[in-house]
């Protein structure tokens, strides 16, 4: 071929994808839903499994109480900080319920309720926020990664774990929880790309609650929806009403089963709202209006569920009372156990830095022991 021979321009572009030989004929399955998927308040709700509804309802009520009690504990100085998921309970409980016991959850710092809803002891789940220990529960025993503070950094971990499970021939699925702000971090994008390329059995749930601390979604992303971000990586993106517990549960269950059966990763965007401030240390009046909060209160996850259960005669006094009793018992237990300061061992500072302490750490431990003894004697 000479330089003047331009016929090669007309030749088809060589395909480096196995199926890139012609135009797509399938109905673009990667494009996300046009409007958020909903079940409650639609005819589909009639077909929902009554047992599932009761279970979701019970967990929503208990979860709300958990959020309230934890927030109160911050005001009493018993918890150092609490990023409440009030208003987001549907996402949290559905995330936990969509997983099998042997699946893995990768929570971010706002997802204590998802962790608790998964069966982790409520007080052990709170050590990070109380300030006595980083991760109070056993990640392996509970199949729940530590609550992750640096944003989106747990997403590649979820991919790696899911990939490893796949390599081992196990059908474990990993679910990574993120906020809308977290989707801007590089780690989020790298995780999606790896997940799609490796066909890893992982699901990403973005709880889009409108704000990353003070920054509204419009200043976070110019994409039509966050679910659209899936398209460029080659995985399905689903959009769901995050306050509709039945819908979140359905979409997540489908995504988890798809992953489990070898269908690869899914990105789910759940539209929800953060009713409380970012944390107890934040002043939300600086960046949002009361009217907005009021509108979302009308779309509260518990309200939506109650409305449906009442309308169909499924919310009897027994169910309501059982949920309330369970919620109050949990709140009482939190109050009781947080009433006193936890017992702390200063020498635990040196435990678990390495499998075997270095000589330097042993010396530093001895130094602290001597200091503590001197303090004791001075008393």
């Amino acid at each position, binding site marked *: 071929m000479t330089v003047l021979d331009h016929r090669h321009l007309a030749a088809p572009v060589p395909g480096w994808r196995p199926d890139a030989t012609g135009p797509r004929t399938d109905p673009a399955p990667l494009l996300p839903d046009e409007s958020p998927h909903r079940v409650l308040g639609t005819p589909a709700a009639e077909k929902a499994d009554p047992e599932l509804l009761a279970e979701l309802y019970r967990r929503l009520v208990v979860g709300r109480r958990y959020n309230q009690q934890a927030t109160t504990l911050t005001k009493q100085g018993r918890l*150092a*900080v609490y990023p409440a998921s009030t208003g987001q309970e549907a996402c949290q409980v559905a995330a936990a319920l969509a997983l099998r016991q042997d699946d893995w959850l990768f929570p971010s710092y706002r997802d204590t309720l998802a962790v608790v809803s998964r069966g982790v002891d409520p007080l052990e789940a709170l*050590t*990070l*926020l*109380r*300030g*006595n*220990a*980083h991760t109070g529960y056993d990640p392996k025993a509970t199949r729940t990664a530590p609550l992750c*503070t*640096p*944003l989106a*950094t747990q997403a590649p971990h979820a991919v790696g774990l899911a990939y490893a499970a796949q390599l081992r021939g196990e059908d474990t699925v990993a679910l990574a929880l993120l906020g809308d*702000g*977290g989707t*801007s*971090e*590089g*780690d989020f994008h790298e995780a999606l790309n790896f997940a799609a390329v490796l066909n890893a059995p992982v699901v990403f749930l973005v709880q889009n609650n409108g704000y*990353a*601390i*003070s*920054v509204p979604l419009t*200043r*976070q*992303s110019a994409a039509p929806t966050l679910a659209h971000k899936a398209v460029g990586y080659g995985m399905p993106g689903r959009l769901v009403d995050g306050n509709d517990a039945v819908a979140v549960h359905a979409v997540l269950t489908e995504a988890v089963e798809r992953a489990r059966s070898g269908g690869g990763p899914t990105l789910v965007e759940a539209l929800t709202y953060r009713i409380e401030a970012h944390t107890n*240390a*934040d*002043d939300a009046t*600086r*960046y949002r209006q009361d009217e907005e909060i009021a509108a979302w209160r009308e779309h509260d996850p518990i309200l939506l569920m109650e409305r449906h259960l009442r309308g169909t005669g499924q919310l009897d006094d027994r169910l309501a009372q059982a949920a309330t009793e369970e919620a109050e018992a949990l709140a009482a237990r939190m109050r009781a156990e947080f009433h006193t*300061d*936890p017992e*702390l061992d*200063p020498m*635990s*500072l*040196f435990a678990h*830095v390495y499998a075997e302490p*270095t000589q*330097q*750490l042993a010396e*530093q431990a001895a130094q*602290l022991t001597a*200091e503590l003894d*001197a303090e004791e004697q001075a008393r």
Partner: protein
Amino acid sequence: MSTAVETRTMAQALNSALRDAMRADESVHVLGEDVGALGGVFRITDGLTAEFGPERCLDTPLAEAGILGTAVGMAMYGLRPVVEMQFDAFAYPAMEQLVSHVAKMRNRTAGRMPLPITIRIPYGGGIGGVEHHSDSSEAYYTHTPGLHVVTPATVADAYGLLRASIASDDPVVFLEPKRLYWGKDALDATAPVEPIGRAVLRRPGRSAVLITYGPSLPVCLEAAEAAKAEGWDLAVLDLRSLVPFDEQTAVELVRSVGRAVVVHESTGFGGAGAEIAARLTEKCFHHLAAPVLRVTGFDIPYPAPMLEHHHLPGVDRILDAVARLQWED
């Protein structure tokens, strides 16, 4: 404009420095997470968007590498970006931009493309922050040639050093000791801005020198006060800048006194204190009556807040070190 001498918190002094720098020079732009309507989680950028508009005080998407990388491009085009990293440990995603580009651009371009970027990072512990909110990361930055590393310990320095950093034609990592944010002192914003790289003697003394910076300065001053009861007269040197390190001031002082302890709260092994102690030993060996000692945080990941007081060097730990300075000689 801040003209008279006023009582300010360190946070307010930093805010004034940003405001005054933006008023003085149109090319100064602030960007970061939550720096707009919220004014930053510590309110250091409070009111800047209201006064200068969202282009000059820009709320960015939540992505530190993106923030710093964008600042690189802005600086390449002639602006003076001031970047806010929300907390010490959340600057790490930007490490690639910092180490590979911000620190090296002047060198890589044979001086044709300097980057006048100021990177403000609240750092250090003592405020009860949970995991990833209390790191002292100065050693990562001081180990990276091409970066200035500055840390004020007083209200006046917070103002003066930030103005100097923004005016610097080199990138500056500006470490803000967050546990000193709310401390109040007099601020004269008209005082001449001191260049970066000079240590100041905060307290003269003949027995030994405490060499420190940032959050540990008040602890050292308290220790010096308490040491009087032991009959020790301790000098306290505030470095203010780790890079450049004011070797001349430190060396002269240590030679004249003969005993020195370096104090900082970050991990000791491979820390800034190791460098300082080694350098002073090299330069002052024949004037020393004792080895230069270090008092630092333990070599552990920053602990949970309820245990942090055991980790952070306090007055007693400093006095113990002074007691080990071979007084019998």
